[in-house]
């Protein structure tokens, strides 16, 4: 009995300490934010640019993640592919790779190969451009979205589609009319968390898109540039916006995520 209560005390203390540690980090940033200057800083040209670029790139990369992860995760969840374990490991790899390494890889792929040159020739210039930010966010986050969607699809019996097929659907229609709407919560949860991770993406984007003021300056890049140049008000404004986005999306994720495997 005594041992059990010691374990209880110990584990709860650790949890509380961890919470205090995290709260301290956020409080420190919030304390540095001057409410009087925050508003004027947020509407400054540079921060507005960073907000806009972050929103545009993260929304596009999230849509790309959704568009690719739906068919890919469906295939992994439903079909017995040859070499499925190997393919699964490969597509999960970006989860484990440091974003900086992904960024270097992207830089080499798009900057030094004939494939990259070809894309550049037809007008798709990824190196040191906002397009680079999008592809960086996409590459870092796709595995994450894929895993959420795969477990969502695995949780939905294929028999819904079988029934729909006997009632007159093609396999694609059956998927669109049953499994996909039933995966709505997983899709929302995955989309929100991917978007929030995308908006905070720094390492990979830094490598391929660089950190150029008013060109490839997303919120995290702006935070980095302004910290380096000692412009604390601007840096804290970026940090504060990123914190708000994270808290809101985490809240939505928790609410939706709990419902993701309802069926």
């Amino acid at each position: 009995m005594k041992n059990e209560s010691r374990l209880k005390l110990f584990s709860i203390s650790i949890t509380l300490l961890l919470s205090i540690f995290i709260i301290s980090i956020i409080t420190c940033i919030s304390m540095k934010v001057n409410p009087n200057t925050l508003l004027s800083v947020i509407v400054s040209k540079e921060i507005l640019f960073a907000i806009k670029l972050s929103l545009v790139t993260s929304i596009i990369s999230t849509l790309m993640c959704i568009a690719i992860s739906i068919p890919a995760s469906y295939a992994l969840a439903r079909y017995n592919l040859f070499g499925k374990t190997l393919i699964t490991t490969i597509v999960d790899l970006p989860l484990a790779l440091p974003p900086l390494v992904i960024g270097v890889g992207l830089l080499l792929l798009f900057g030094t190969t004939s494939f990259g040159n070809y894309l550049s020739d037809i007008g798709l210039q990824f190196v040191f451009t906002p397009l680079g930010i999008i592809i960086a966010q996409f590459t870092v986050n796709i595995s994450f979205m894929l895993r959420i969607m795969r477990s969502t699809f695995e949780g939905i019996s294929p028999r819904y589609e079988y029934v729909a097929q006997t009632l007159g659907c093609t396999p694609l229609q059956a998927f669109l009319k049953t499994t996909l709407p039933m995966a709505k919560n997983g899709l929302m949860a995955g989309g929100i968390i991917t978007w929030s991770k995308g908006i905070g993406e720094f390492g990979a984007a830094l490598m391929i898109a660089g950190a150029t003021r008013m060109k490839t300056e997303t919120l995290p890049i702006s935070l980095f540039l302004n910290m380096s140049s000692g412009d604390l008000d601007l840096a804290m404004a970026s940090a504060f916006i990123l914190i708000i986005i994270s808290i809101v999306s985490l809240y939505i994720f928790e609410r939706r995520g709990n419902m993701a495997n309802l069926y």
Partner: protein
Amino acid sequence: MIRIENVSKDLGEFKLNDVTLHINEGEYCIILGPTGAGKTILIETIAGIYHPDCGEIFLGGINVTDVSPKDRSISMVYQDYMLFPHLTVEENVGFGLRLKKIAKNDIKKEVNKITDLLGVSHLLNRYPDTLSGGEKQRIAIARAVITKPKVLLLDEPLSALDTRTTWRLQEELKKMHRLTKTTTIHVTHSFEEAFSLGDRIAVMKDGKIIQVGVPDDIFRKPNSEFIADFVGVENIFRGKSVVHNDISEVHTDEICIVSSTLKSGDVAASIRPEDIFISKTEFESSARNSFVGKIIRIKSMGALTKIEVDVGAPFVVALTKQSFENMEFVCGNRVYIAFKASAVHLF
């Protein structure tokens, strides 16, 4: 109507092994077998969900082996209903008709008609999550039959329901089949369901069909030890039951059996062999059922001996070895058998 010719399919865990089965137009065919026998793959293959590794499937004389499920005019109902949770009952039932691009008003009419028939028309605006098992299964059946399929496939449709709901739905399935005459294949592991609903029964084991026949044949003349064990019931009779004075009288073609289970209409009656008394002289007991007949076979089964007695209908009586030896029965003996009304189970 449906001809399944030498169909094999290997899905790893489950498989079909050279299945051949012919089902007649309008027939109610039961596929009976234990869990893992391959019953579900068989009907999913008939529906076109799986393409057979070899063999062919004919529907009304046409080879449909390569026809996609949507063009086969075969509907399917699963044990766990598979109602689309994001659609209302009305949208679920009308699903098949909407795909056929039928006018909204006509869909509504058809939905009302079929849900009225199945007694679920008051649930049209509800979502499946809020319904009971029996309601869900009625709606799944409504969704399947509304498209007027040539063949209805039912995969353990009654297995997830409580006994009373099962009984009632069984009656409704019978009624619906009488009304629509839709060729039906019903998969089950319950011999009661099989006996009560099936025009014919196909018994499956390890991906193979091991016996096909009318229920009486399957139960009385099982062609293997496995089927005899699996159906596990002897003394099973079909007949019409009339209830009066708190008892049921079941009239079969040959005899009349009295039961204390109250159920009228088409029923099956079963009596366990060990509940039947047997004697060379006439009984003077309170047992409501007594018959006279002739011993036609004696089978020793270790501690038990089973005696088959023909009283117009064949009965199997079980005796301990000891009492069998005391009574000195031999084949051809004229004997009396008797059992209580409470020993007769109706279903």
